[in-house]
């Protein structure tokens, strides 16, 4: 826990110890972690398997560009206002999608992402297929931008990882874990399963939206294929499944593995993705808990102790 807070501070202080290139790489890693953790909350805890979170990433990214570029809102303020867009869009999406049974829900989320992408491609307001540039960023110096990106990285991690952790340790989190283990029993214990799922869906949309907006801001350009890139679903699923589903540790491990693998083997292109795909199949067939599942089973260690022990402690710090 202390390590986590130190990490967040280190992220925020990046401009004073890291080069611009490093900051960009760390930013990418932070986006992986954030998106993967949101997917983990959905699939690992709420039982909602989504392959379309890129819908909200793109929506928030576009909202940021429209606010900052078209309406001249300060981009660092715009990025927060932009988060309202995925939040509002998530509500009707969930209303429709929750009617779909288990695996069909997943494909439904993909359709929604496709709809978002196609709508963006057809809207003249968003400059259609050509996309938009965030020229207003040129008004800031490189150092100013580095400071901003670093703070956003820190915030992204604080909100997604810290937020998830806080949520899982809260009253709702306990209910959620009860729900994951046995939805029927949880419902009969007075846990409002439907409302909880809805809340997580919206929260995950906002979390992914922030990651999407930060990523788009760093890229300075946005267009429909990149904003609504299904690659994010692949990345999130790989990270969470290989790292270990239903654990924050798993997401961190998975993200690091993916990030390093991408740096080392990304040059091999297709064959690298074949290996990733086969690994995902392998995990689904033989090692559902992923790496962290195997580690924690063996040594019973937890960096983020979500399970409560019967010993009463007034403070929840480790």
């Amino acid at each position, binding site marked *: 826990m202390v390590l986590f807070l130190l990490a967040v501070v280190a992220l925020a202080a990046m401009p004073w110890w890291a080069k611009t290139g490093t900051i960009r790489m760390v930013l990418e890693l932070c986006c992986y972690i954030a998106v993967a953790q949101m997917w983990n909350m959905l699939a690992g805890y709420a039982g909602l398997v989504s392959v379309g979170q890129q819908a909200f990433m793109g929506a928030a990214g576009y909202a940021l560009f429209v606010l900052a570029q078209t309406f001249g809102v300060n981009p660092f303020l715009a990025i927060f206002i932009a988060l309202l867009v995925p939040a509002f869009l998530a509500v009707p999406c969930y209303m429709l999608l929750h009617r*779909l049974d288990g695996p069909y829900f997943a494909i439904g989320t993909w359709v929604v992402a496709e*709809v978002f992408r196609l709508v963006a491609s057809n809207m003249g307001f968003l400059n259609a297929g050509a996309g938009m540039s965030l020229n207003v960023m040129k008004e800031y110096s490189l150092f100013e931008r580095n400071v901003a990106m670093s703070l956003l990285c820190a915030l992204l991690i604080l909100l997604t990882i810290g937020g998830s952790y806080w949520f899982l340790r809260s009253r709702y989190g306990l209910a959620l874990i009860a729900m994951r283990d046995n939805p029927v029993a949880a419902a009969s214990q007075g846990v409002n399963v439907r409302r909880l799922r809805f809340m997580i869906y919206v929260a995950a949309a906002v979390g992914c939206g922030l990651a999407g907006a930060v990523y788009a801001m760093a890229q300075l350009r946005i267009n429909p294929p990149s904003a609504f890139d299904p690659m994010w679903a692949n990345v999130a*699923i790989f990270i969470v499944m290989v790292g270990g589903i239903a654990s924050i540790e798993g997401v961190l491990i998975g993200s690091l593995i993916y990030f390093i693998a991408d740096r080392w083997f990304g040059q091999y292109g297709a064959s690298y*993705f*074949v290996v990733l*795909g*086969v690994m995902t199949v392998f995990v*689904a067939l033989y090692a559902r808990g992923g790496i962290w599942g195997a580690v924690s089973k063996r040594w019973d260690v937890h960096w983020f102790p979500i399970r409560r022990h019967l010993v009463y402690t007034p403070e929840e710090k480790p």
Partner: protein
Amino acid sequence: MQWFDALIQGILLGGMYAQYALGMALMFGVMRIVNVSHGDLVILLSLIGISLASNFGWGPFTVMVALVPLAIALGWLLQKVVLNKVVGDDPLPSLIATFGLSIALQNMMLQIWSANSRSLPGGGIESQSIQIGGIYVGLLPVLVLTFATALTWGLDLVLKRTRFGRSLRAASADVEAASMSGINARAVYASATAIAVGILGFAAVFQSLRSTVAPADGGAQLIYAFEAVIIGGMGSVWGAFIGSMVLGVSQAIGFRIDPGFGVLAGHLVFLLVLAIRPQGLFGKV
């Protein structure tokens, strides 16, 4: 006249989608599994078919004769190696396994066949057209629709009238009770997937005859199959067939309004059905 033409084109397009949707409806009905690599399998089979045709100079129907048994074998293998291990109450393992398979297949195809679009030479049938009631329609789309109708009709008959069909329906109603009646669920599952993928053997030939295929196209085919099944309503193969027609017509009409709107119109009709009739047009509540 223009709209009537769009309607006809849409129905013919629906014939193509029906060939994807049947297998998906069958697998979901029996095992509650959605095979995310469904579309990628169509593309894989298409590319194999194209390679066969160019290497041996085979015509499209010879390719079909070779491809369908191959597809059946592929389906059986898929069930034995992957799906039998993930079938169960929890939808996550089967989704993840087939999702991983989809990524692996797509990229494997990319390596073998490169990202280029290819198509199957049809020896002229792709450009022939016939006149029906004052409208010229392509011979190939009519052939596609005919095959789709025959496949739907055949599958429906198999499900209703045969021993295998009864065990399939029994297993989809209650798999434990089915085993109490002596049904070997895994054998039934393997046959269901073999049939589902086998139908894709037909779809692959037609898909690569009527347009081009590239390794990355699988996702779209999966989505169309899925939309058709949901629009039509789960639980009946004719539902999937009609759903495919509705999807095809929506896309064709959308395309007439604006070429960029075609696919989107299909998605919107799907969302509309989900909003006002979530059980699908022909589904039971």
